[in-house]
């Protein structure tokens, strides 16, 4: 006899006498940071007892058999000792992760008649099952909720907030399988979402995943506990940081060990303005897809700050990896800051992989099977030593050979170096200043100025001045004649390249914004020039010997 399938999207065909049952359960899987709808078809029939999953499952999905079985038995639900075939349609899309456990379990229950078909009507499911029947967090709840279409999505209780960001009112949560089954049967009301319970439990999970969006602790203290007031001295470094934050400019700090490069960089997150709703949604989507815990309320509202170690591989930075492709650090830092400490220690190939995303704002990771596009609108902040011994920016202190210094400088390719709008040499803080302990401006003061400057750029129709196109520069960053003369002189003497010309003008515009000046004056250009110092060569001696030539 032929199986009978209900005409609905969700359906089941019961024929206990005819020994043939099919259930169709809508669900979704992740493709990069985007959800893709999946229909889980469960077929229970006579034959040798067994369980097969077909439809391009990866190892994680294939293992779901044991999890689903144990979960069902733990919840005192029957496991039919029949031939069970699970098909994940469409079968040309690879499916990964444990999020399909729950739809498979529901499909089994419907196909074996434990749940009436109508109880699951209009519902889609996503969730990982524990052996005791608990329903666990899955990464990418936002993207999965997007893909769930017109149905109501049932997600793990801990993911209700995330999924509600995009499908508010069409999300239901459940924390155990038995709770879900009784709610579906109508024996008990649907469990209510209680954020305090979820966030309490989250502390535990957070430890196990080891990662959480920086902003979990953030709304009250956006700097993550770092305040600019802690930085003594470093007037030029602080100023460069402020300009970088105000204009979204890429910043490279070059200095000896202990000059406070890392300390400064960590404090940039605190002075960046909050994310707009659109950016916040995109950041939350990426972080959710990467399996990073989102802050209370679901939406990541402060710019992310990512600081991968220099042992990071190219894939870790750019994204990719085994299925499902994971967004890399540059995407995780989207709309925020990617901080590369000890940039000279990163492999050159890894650094050069940043060049294209830096220009385009997206990264397309292509594999034989598919291509995934990740957003990558990040601001790059780098820190490195000037030479292997680290003392190069202090006059006469470096004992490295010229070839060693040249080799070290080459670790940053010229095209990458050219993409930095601000390059500042830092020196160790003068001990006198350190002892005097004059406290610098605090994060909140600087953040207020940065916010004002950003508002001025928003008035020009861009998020920050780094996004101004050359045509827009003519319109918004017209130079005073004196300022223009200064810049032209620099072009003539070769101090500024043609490409650097526009970068200087953007930075000068930002400096003028911080000064609340409508026009770009000479002093703004002069500062922009000074903050783009040491182009290509950080070595004092080297520079001097070329000027003496």
């Amino acid at each position: 006899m032929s199986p009978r399938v209900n005409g609905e999207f969700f359906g089941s065909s019961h024929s206990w006498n005819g020994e043939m049952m099919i259930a169709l359960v809508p669900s979704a899987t992740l493709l990069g940071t985007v959800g893709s709808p999946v229909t889980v078809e469960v077929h229970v029939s006579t034959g040798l007892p067994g369980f097969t999953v077909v439809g391009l499952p990866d190892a994680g999905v294939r293992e779901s058999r044991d999890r689903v079985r144990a979960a069902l038995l733990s919840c005192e639900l029957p496991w039919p000792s029949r031939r069970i075939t699970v098909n994940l349609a469409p079968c040309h899309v690879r499916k990964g992760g444990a999020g399909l456990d729950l739809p498979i379990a529901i499909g089994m229950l419907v196909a074996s008649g434990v749940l009436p078909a109508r109880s699951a009507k209009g519902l889609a499911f996503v969730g990982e099952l524990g052996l005791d029947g608990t329903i666990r967090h899955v990464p990418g709840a936002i993207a999965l909720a997007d893909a769930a279409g017109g149905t109501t999505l049932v997600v793990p209780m801990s993911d209700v907030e995330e999924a509600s960001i995009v499908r508010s009112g069409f999300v239901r949560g459940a924390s155990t399988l038995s709770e879900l089954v009784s709610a579906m049967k109508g024996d008990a009301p649907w469990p209510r979402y209680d954020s305090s319970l979820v966030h309490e439990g989250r502390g535990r999970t957070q430890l196990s995943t080891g990662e959480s969006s920086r902003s979990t602790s953030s709304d009250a203290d956006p700097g993550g506990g770092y305040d600019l007031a802690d930085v003594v001295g470093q007037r030029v470094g602080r100023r460069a940081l402020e300009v970088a934050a105000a204009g979204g400019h890429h910043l490279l700090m070059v200095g000896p060990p202990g000059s406070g490069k890392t300390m400064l960089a960590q404090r940039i997150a605190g002075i960046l303005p909050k994310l707009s709703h659109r950016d916040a949604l995109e950041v939350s989507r990426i972080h959710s897809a990467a399996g990073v815990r989102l802050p209370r309320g679901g939406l990541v509202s402060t710019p992310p700050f990512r600081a991968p170690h220099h042992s990071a591989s190219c894939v870790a930075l750019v994204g990719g990896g085994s299925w499902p492709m994971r967004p890399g650090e540059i995407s995780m830092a989207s709309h925020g800051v990617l901080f590369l400490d000890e940039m000279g220690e990163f492999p050159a190939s890894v650094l050069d992989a940043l060049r294209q995303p830096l220009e385009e704002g997206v990264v397309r990771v292509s594999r034989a099977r598919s291509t995934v596009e990740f957003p990558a609108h990040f601001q790059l902040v780098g820190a490195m030593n000037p030479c292997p011994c680290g003392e190069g920016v202090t006059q006469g202190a470096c004992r490295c050979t010229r070839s060693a210094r040249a080799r070290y400088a080459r670790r940053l390719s010229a095209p990458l170096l050219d993409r930095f709008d601000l390059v500042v040499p830092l020196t160790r803080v003068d001990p006198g200043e350190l002892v005097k302990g004059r406290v610098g401006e605090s994060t909140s003061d600087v953040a207020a100025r940065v916010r004002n400057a950003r508002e001025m750029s928003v008035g020009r129709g861009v998020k920050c001045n780094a996004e101004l196109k050359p045509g827009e520069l003519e319109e918004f960053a017209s130079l005073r004649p004196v300022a223009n003369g200064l810049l032209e002189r620099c072009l003539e003497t070769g101090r500024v390249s043609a490409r650097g010309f526009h970068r200087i003008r953007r930075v000068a515009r930002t400096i003028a914004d911080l000064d609340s000046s409508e026009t770009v004056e000479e002093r703004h250009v002069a500062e922009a020039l000074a903050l783009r110092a040491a182009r290509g060569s950080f070595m004092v001696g080297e520079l001097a010997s070329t000027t003496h030539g």
Partner: protein
Amino acid sequence: MKASSSSGCIREEAYAVALASVRSIGPKRVRELLVGSCPSAAWEMVTSGQLDADDPRCRREAESVDVDSLYRSYEEAGVIASFIGSRSYPATLEAAKHAPGVIFSTGDISLLNKFPKVAIVGTRSATRYGLGVASQFAAELATAGVCVVSGLAEGVDTAAHEGSCGGWENSNRSGAPPCAVAAGGLDQRSCGGDERIRRRITRGGVVVSGDPIGVPAARWSFPKRCKLMAMLVDAVVVVESHLQGGSMRTVDAAAQLGKPVGAVPGSIRSPASAGTNSLLADGCFPVRDLSDILVALSLDGLWPPARPLTPPTSPMDIGESKDSGSDEVLDALGWEPCSLEELVVHLDKPVSVVCSSLERLSGEGRVRGGEGYWERIR
């Protein structure tokens, strides 16, 4: 053996080259041989086995040397060999007990006997101050007719060579031509130094080396070069040196030979001046200007008194600057290179104000920099 050249002098030179390239005969032995006899006779002694009492390898090795083709390779490379006793051999080396018996040169070696010579040495990782001082003294010495000798390394050496080349060229070649002492054979690429500066020196001056051609510059070539330089010159001036810098080898060698050693005082905070300052404490004569060096060479009476050096001119001489901000920045800058950070801290003014003053001063040609460091030039 075929005679490649009719001139007997050149034949002698060929044997001198052959002697120097037999590795089992040390430089000391070569000198002893050449002091006693002419190169051809010395070579005869080696090949006939008269030296074999000490070392039987000498003869075996010497027999494998083809004097003619060896000498031809020197002619092709444009390298001249001068042996002790020959006219081109520098007189200062003849007096030194441990000087190599044969030295090699490109350019005009005879000028070493015509001019007084001063070595300007210093660290490779020099500050702007050191580089500026080295090139200034070198230019002034070259103009005054004192041959400046340095070691072709980067940093102070290069600055000194550039200064002396500039002084020689700017004085319409009436001063003293530049001189360099290279480590390793003269056909080898100079180690670390700039190939262009070597060519520039060869055009008007001379590059000498104690090593035969084909010998690469190795770690041990540098101490040898330092000693040769000390023997060659009449006085040594250390511009900038770290406490354990390589320039100290030249200083030690010169001190042993009893030649005057001067040091340029530097900031007590600058690690690149730690060596020179300690030399001053040890009793080296301080070098503040050209006349200090000329006094050490006992030449101060022969030359017209040295021009006062370009800096310490007061701002009054140049005329008032347009705005008070620039003057303040100029004062804060002083005569030592200064980082932007130091200036901002010192003046306690916003970065943009200091930067614009600096740019304006640099437009006026009064300061130089922009790569993190700024220095006053007038």
